[in-house]
Structure formats: C-alpha cells, structure tokens
C-alpha cells in the first residue's frame, strides 16, 4: 500500500464528509418521507419532484447551482458572509454537495420502510392518546428503522463517491478539501502515480464493503429483536 499523508487526510476527510452529510440529512429525509407517505398535501407532486431531482440532474449541475447560491455573489452566500460564515471551498461545502446528491436515495429507502407500516397502527396509537408527534416518534420512527438504516448506508456510500458537485463547490485542495475520488482523479492524470491511485481505490473498496456489511448486520439485528 502506498499512501501519502495527503492521501490519509483525504480518506479521513471523505469519511467525515460522508458521515456528516448523512447525519445532517437524516431528520430532513425522515420528514420528507413522512410527508410523502402519510400526509395528503396539495403540492405533493412538487415535493416529489424536488426530492428526486438531484437523482436525475448531473451532479455538476447541482454543484454549479450551489456555487451560485452559496458563492460570494449568491444571496445565501452574502447572508452567510455577513454572519462571518464561509462555506465555499471548505469541507463544509463538500458536506452540502454530498447531502444534496445523496438525499433522494435516503428519502427513497426511508419511504419504502414507511410504506410497509399499516396505517391502522398509527390510527391505533392516536386513539390511545398519542399526539401526531408522539405517534411519529413511538410508532413510525421505530417501524421505519430498517429503511432508515438502508437509506443511511446508501447515502453514506454515495457521499463517499461524490465527485462532480464537490469539485465545484469545495474545490480540490489536497489536505483541505480533497476527498478520495478527487485524489484518485489527480493521480490518474499523472502516469507515474498508478500505484498510488490503485492504493486509494483499494481503500475505497474496503470502506464500501465495510458499509455494506454493517448495513447487513444492523438489518439482521433489527429483524431478530423484532421477532423475539
């Protein structure tokens, strides 16, 4: 294995970005899935399209929109600048890019989990004295755990591989905003660095396999605890 200190930083940064993006998106993903499954809304189609749009848009396009929005001249960027917050070209921008790109995958998985919940269970909890929020926390949340775990693993894995949006909003600065895919991209452009590229590729494989195994394990654990 050939890993430079910058590579090690890139690995840690990738994990950090993916984990933060996933955790940050979870409450929003859960809320979006809940709205889509359990609520009768007038603008449901709009919400549906908005949630799924990042899945069909090229990540570069998402990155460019985010840059326009969060950049120096973007309206949100200006607001943040006034508050002394700089997002563009920091690892936080990479988190936001990953969060946008992975969001549809998260919502889809949670939604599948929620759709399998019998509406009468929720009705039962309401007539037993639970408010809608109580019912959300004590019935819907625990019963969609399987979907939440699946969605989180998917989103985490997708974030690890995020390239197009990240390179635009966070840049490709070794040691600061360079994640694994960006580092591999750099290595592939110089013919002498094949071994380094392969090393990072192997690391990617190991992390991905670990995420999948963890997902399987958690899923089985959930099934077991449910049937006891």
């Amino acid at each position: 294995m050939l890993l430079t200190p910058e590579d090690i930083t890139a690995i840690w940064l990738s994990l950090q970005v993916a984990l933060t993006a996933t955790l940050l998106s979870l409450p929003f993903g859960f809320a979006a899935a809940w709205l889509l499954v359990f609520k009768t809304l007038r603008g449901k189609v709009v919400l549906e399209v908005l949630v799924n749009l990042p899945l069909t848009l090229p990540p570069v396009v998402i990155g460019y929109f985010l840059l326009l929005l969060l950049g120096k001249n973007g309206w949100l960027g200006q607001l943040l600048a006034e508050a002394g917050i700089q997002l563009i070209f920091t690892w936080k921008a990479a988190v936001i890019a990953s969060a946008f790109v992975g969001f549809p995958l998260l919502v889809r998985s949670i939604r599948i989990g929620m759709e399998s919940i019998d509406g009468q269970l929720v009705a039962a909890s309401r007539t037993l004295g639970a408010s809608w929020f109580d019912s959300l926390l004590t019935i819907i949340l625990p019963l969609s755990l399987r979907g939440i775990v699946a969605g989180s693993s998917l989103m985490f894995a997708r974030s690890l591989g995020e390239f197009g949006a990240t390179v635009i909003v966070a840049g490709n600065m070794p040691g600061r905003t360079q994640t694994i895919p960006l580092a591999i991209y750099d290595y592939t452009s110089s013919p002498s660095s094949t071994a380094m590229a392969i090393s990072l590729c192997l690391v990617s494989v190991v992390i991905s396999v670990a995420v999948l195994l963890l997902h399987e394990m958690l899923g089985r654990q959930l099934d077991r605890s449910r049937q006891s």
Partner: protein
Amino acid sequence: MRLGIKVKKQLGSFCLEVDTDISGDRIGIFGDSGSGKSSLVKLVSGLMQPDEGEIVLNGESLFSSRRRVNISPEKRGIAIVFQQAMLFPHLSVKNNLLYGYRRCVEQYRTIRPDALIDLLKLEPLLHRGVYHLSGGEKQRVALGRAVLANPRLLLMDEPLSALDDQLRYQIIPYLRSVSDELRIPYLFISHSVKEMQLMTEQIIVLTRGALTEETTPERLARNRMAQSQSGYLNLLSLADPQQHNGLYAYQWGENTLLVSTGESGAEESLFELSSREIILFKKHPEAISARNLLECTVVEMFNAAGRVGIVLSAKGNKFIAEIVQSAADELNISPGSTLFAAIKASSFRRLG
C-alpha cells in the same frame, strides 16, 4: 352514554349521511360490507373528518362544522378495537398494553393494569413478543390495550371477523366484560346478526351509507330470519349437564334438553339452535327419533319475507321456530294454541 351523530361525508362516489341520537351502553352498528360502518367509526373517533355536521358525546361536542370544533383523536377518549388486532410489532405485550395507559391523565385512570390483566387472563402472555401470540390472544391483548387507555367509549370495529368460529365465542365473554364489569360503553360494529344478538342491546342499521333502521337485536334477528342461511338463531346458555346414554342432559328452566355435544362442569356453555331445525306437531307424536319433544304454547307469530316465525314457550322458556306459510295454514296455528316441538340432540350447536 349518549352519542349524537349528524354527519355527511362524501368518499368518492359513496356518500355517508347519518343523523341519529343514540343512548345506551351496548350499541350495535349493523350493515353489510360497504355500508359505511367503518367510515362511521373513523368519523366518531376523529381519524376522519366529516364534510359537515356535528358529533356530540355525552353533551360534549367532538366535531362541529358550524362552530369549527374538531377535537383531535387523542383527546376524544375513544379507543378502537380493530378487526385485525393491530398490536405494535416493535413493542412487547406489556408495553402494548400500557401504551394508552401511560398517555392517560392520572385522574381518569380508573382501570388499573393489574386488575385488567387478571380479568382478561393476560398474565401468561405478558412477556411474549407479539409475534408469538395466536389470533385470539392478540385480540385479547388489543382489547386490554384499548381498555387501559381508560376511554369514555370503546369502538369495536368487527373485532371477531378475523377469528375462526371457536375462538370467536371464547373472546365474546371478554368483550362483554368491558361493559359488565368495567362500565365502559361500546359501539359494536358487525355484519353478523348472531354477534349483534350476543353483544348489543340496540342497533342502528346502515345501508349504502344511510341509516335505514333503528332496532333491537331481537327484531333484527327476526326480520332477517328468511334471508339468513340458518334462519333465526335461538341462543341458549346451558350449564352443568348430566351424562345420559351417551348424550348430555342439560336443564333449561324446567325443561330437560338432550344434547349430543357438551362438557361436564358448572361453567355455562352457549348453544345455538336454528329456527329451521325445529319440527312442529299439532298432536303428540307416538314415537320419533328426535330426542327432545317439548310441549309448548304459541306466544306470538310474525311474518318475515314469506316465512312464519312462531314464538313458543315451553314451561316459560321462549324460543322461535320457523315454518312456511302453507304449513302454518295447515296446522291452523294461532297464539295460545298448543304444539309439540321436536328437536334432534345434534341440532344444538355449541359455541363455546
């Protein structure tokens, strides 16, 4: 309990329109599937909103489109026992039972978990997962869970339909105990005349979304005698039989009934006897194969779609036999006349 419902709800092409004011503790809502029974349950419990109207429980407005009142389901104090038990799969039996109790305000907690667990015999189930319960056990837990929420009114939405015959009659005493011992009034929703007879005191009948009849279980059973496959069902509560030549001899008031299936012991068993399985004789027949021959007086006669129902009294115990009009004419029956009713020992069906 007094419940005033005056609501209108359009559901696609189906329109539910009910206007009634009912009081009592065991009220039945009877109707075929698609008659709007379940929609009415949802409207009363607050799970669905009427388009317009009023719902008033014991003088308190639960919904009023005019005064813009819509109490949310968790504040209505109306619990439901569903057709499928709907136990929370991620909680233990104990936590299922306590779900509503924990959310009930201290001052309304009149029914305590220990007492209820005893009454419904739930102790052996407490530490099992809900996946390890039989259908009947699940329904008992669901009943316990609803009762422990200490509701003002319990809605039983076809709670017996998903159970097989034998289990059904094991559950009925538990369901009845809700009103007998715990004093919780209930609405019992079903499409079965027999369940109405066993569970309710008065009934509203829904037909295609409209209230078509306010009646009693007895009148409902009589009216539906001709349409029903087994006619009118006489329900007899019998106990403590003596063995008699391979049959069981039960005391029914001052009469003795010979029944082919039974169970020794003082505990009451419920038997059904179809009005169509009773043969009537004008004079005492010399010898017959049927093991029961009761001398009866005709108390009353009624017509139901071409059939004649004869209310008979055998030493004070009433039951109903059913014959066709021509037989009634031939036998020349009128109230007060004496008849002999022959019933085979195997005609009594034990319900549990």
